[in-house]
């Protein structure tokens, strides 16, 4: 092959490969993209319906409940303003603790309970998932300023 043709071949193949990859990528992206939704938004009903998303916050102290001898657990997750009940079946991560940060993957059922299929706890003492930290900081600030967040008043539900 002449160098010129070679280059054309290379460019052609590369373009073809990239086009196929880009097409497949974009299609698959839609299905696998998982949004992080703040708990206050979940409580207000602003969450993707009929698909999985992530929530994150602190595990409410004293909310962890487990049926004896069963793998089913339930607990509440809060962003300090609102909270959402979560149910999960399986082994909880080592770093899962009441009062600590947690991220859950799953979807909301019709009763407003978050059915988690994956639970992730923070990985070490210094570390909290950035989106959880952001969400908590925002709500703690709002509380300090005592400015209504515009969302639903959740404090009453919690107590």
């Amino acid at each position, binding site marked *: *092959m002449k160098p010129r043709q070679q280059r054309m071949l290379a460019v052609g193949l590369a373009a073809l490969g990239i086009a196929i990859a880009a097409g497949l990528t974009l299609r698959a*992206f839609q299905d696998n993209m998982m949004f*992080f939704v703040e708990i206050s938004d979940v409580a207000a009903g602003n969450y993707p319906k009929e698909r999985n998303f992530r929530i994150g916050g602190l595990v409410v102290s004293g909310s962890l409940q487990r049926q004896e001898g*069963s*793998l089913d657990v339930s607990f509440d997750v809060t962003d300090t303003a609102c909270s959402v009940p979560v149910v999960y079946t399986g082994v*909880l991560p080592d770093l899962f603790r009441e009062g600590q940060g947690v991220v859950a993957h799953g979807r909301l059922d019709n009763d407003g309970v978050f059915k988690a299929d994956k639970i992730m706890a923070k990985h070490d003492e210094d570390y909290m998932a950035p*989106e959880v930290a952001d969400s908590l900081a925002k709500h703690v600030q709002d509380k300090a300023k005592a400015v209504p967040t515009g969302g639903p008043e959740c404090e009453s539900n919690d107590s």
Partner: protein
Amino acid sequence: MIPEIGQFALILALSLAICQAVVPLVGAHRGDTGMMRVARTAATGQFLFIAVSFACLIWAFLSDEFSVLYVANHSQLSLPTLYKVSAVWGAHEGSLLMWILILAAWTLAVASFSSDLPEAFAARVIGVLGLLSVGFLLFAILTSNPFERLVPAAADGGDLNPLLQDPGLAIHPPLLYIGYVGFSVAFAFAIAAMLSGDLDRTWARWTRPWTTLAWMFLTLGIALGSWWAYYELGWGGWWFWDAVENASFMPWLIGTALIHSLAVTEKRGLFKSWTLLLAITAFSLSLLGTFLVRSGIIVSVHAFATDPTRGFFILTFLAIVVVGALVLYAWRAPALDSDVGFGLLSRETFLLLNNVLLVVATALVLIGTLSPLVIEMATGGKISIGPPWFNAAFLVPTIPLVILVGMGMHTAWRTQSASPWLRTLRFPAIAALVLGVVIPLFVYGRASILLVVGCAAAAWIVIMALIPIVRALRRERGAAGITRSVVGMSVAHLGVGLFVLGVTVVSAFGVESDRALSPGESIEVAGYEFEMKGLSNVKGPNFSAIEAEIEIRKDAAYVATVRPQKRQYLVQQSLMTEAGIHAGLDKDLFVALGDQLGNGSWSVRIQYKPLIRFIWLGALVMALGGLIAISDRRYRVRERKEAKAAGAAAEAPA
């Protein structure tokens, strides 16, 4: 006192690094031999001072010097000695110092084994490495000083993260860093070639062993990390498409492409500017990986604590390196390309396809890793891309890749006539297809299209890779054998085959089950019976644990006893799962303790993982292939010849 010596040595190393960068580069530009000679001396000196600094930090850990902030945060009196040493690189400051030490060691190695390089070229290579070292030393001294004092000193330290207290993790970061940093050598060779405007086949021959060596270490480092995640994180997965895993995987993919492209440049003098671009990309991706880990902008197991100044520094450094290298590339590369042609059916074509597919694979991983960041910046929405996407997307370039590997190995350079080629391929292709059906259907009892494709592709590569190895072994006595390069290449591809087989089988036939289990009770998973014999308390040096004794039986016959633990580390009060694994070449049986469920029972995660060892075995074999290829005679003969000539020249004036 000793920590201050370490700090001081680091500053001296910086001044030597500046020397090592500026003087030889200027010398090479002016043709001043005296200035060029500074390169090797400065590199040696810089290495010594960094080694002193590193030794000081190790000393601080071993002697429990809790007046040093970094030690106080990451060590503890009762920490076993091995982990006191590995704690040195257990967090940001120390691992950065180790990065710098490894860069200096690579530079020293280049300086020592470059006697066959033209003086000006060696000076440029060492000078460029010096520039990189300046960047990293500044980073350490300005933003991440490991020797910072803590006043007043702490009585005891905060302990090393229990996840990191594991022998596998003690050596995973060093291996990975040797690989990462090793690509800086290929980068420096590329920059030196562009500075001098000379790039011929000899250049490729110089660059190849260094690149292969770095790639080999990176392969081992990634495999070890994957193995560690499997047994230590207690999840039983071997790859999570975690951002930081991806960060080490992308340089590996590009490094693999670079090795293949260098082969073409050496043998045929082709793909020159492409090779340069890959060398630049491989190192840039290593830097990008560092940025992702250090800045904490990405959610990951590995991400260290967030620090915007560090992230900003490393991003600036990345920008300077990438933009600088690309500007040089745009200016010089067009002049380098040669006008040699090759046939449509030729090894060059296959290597070209290999490169295209590997680059596409890298691009996919890059898109998946960075798109959450891009989308957040653009829309404020926080998304994540799950492993299912990566798994699916990654197959698109890799399935054709593994099929083409088997063909390309048996194709001649320049041009290959079709009929003998087809004859060579015919029998192995049929055998691979048969095996592709037989392995899933008769060994594991189920088959699907993807399974047949995976198993057939694995068998295909294994057969094609074995042909040259068998030939080489047969010809051992007598006629000129097959070169180590060819054997190394075949062994590495054999590793790919084993890896593909392992991945296909374990992802299709692995069983994972979370169950409740109490002492005396037994449950069945994947045809095996797991009985909990009892629970006991055990004590370690810095933890206490509950240990379960679990007996595994198959058809009432005893198979093994595993002892998974739930550990409580005393200082950090953190819980850790130590899985009990019965490992075998054909399968792993994996039991991890979950939580206490009240009434005396525990949740356990039980897994059956067929052929999972092939994944790491495959990586090991790939690395072995690299090692064999590096030992090829042509790299050494040349060196010896040149060394002799240099020796003679040195004697003459004396």
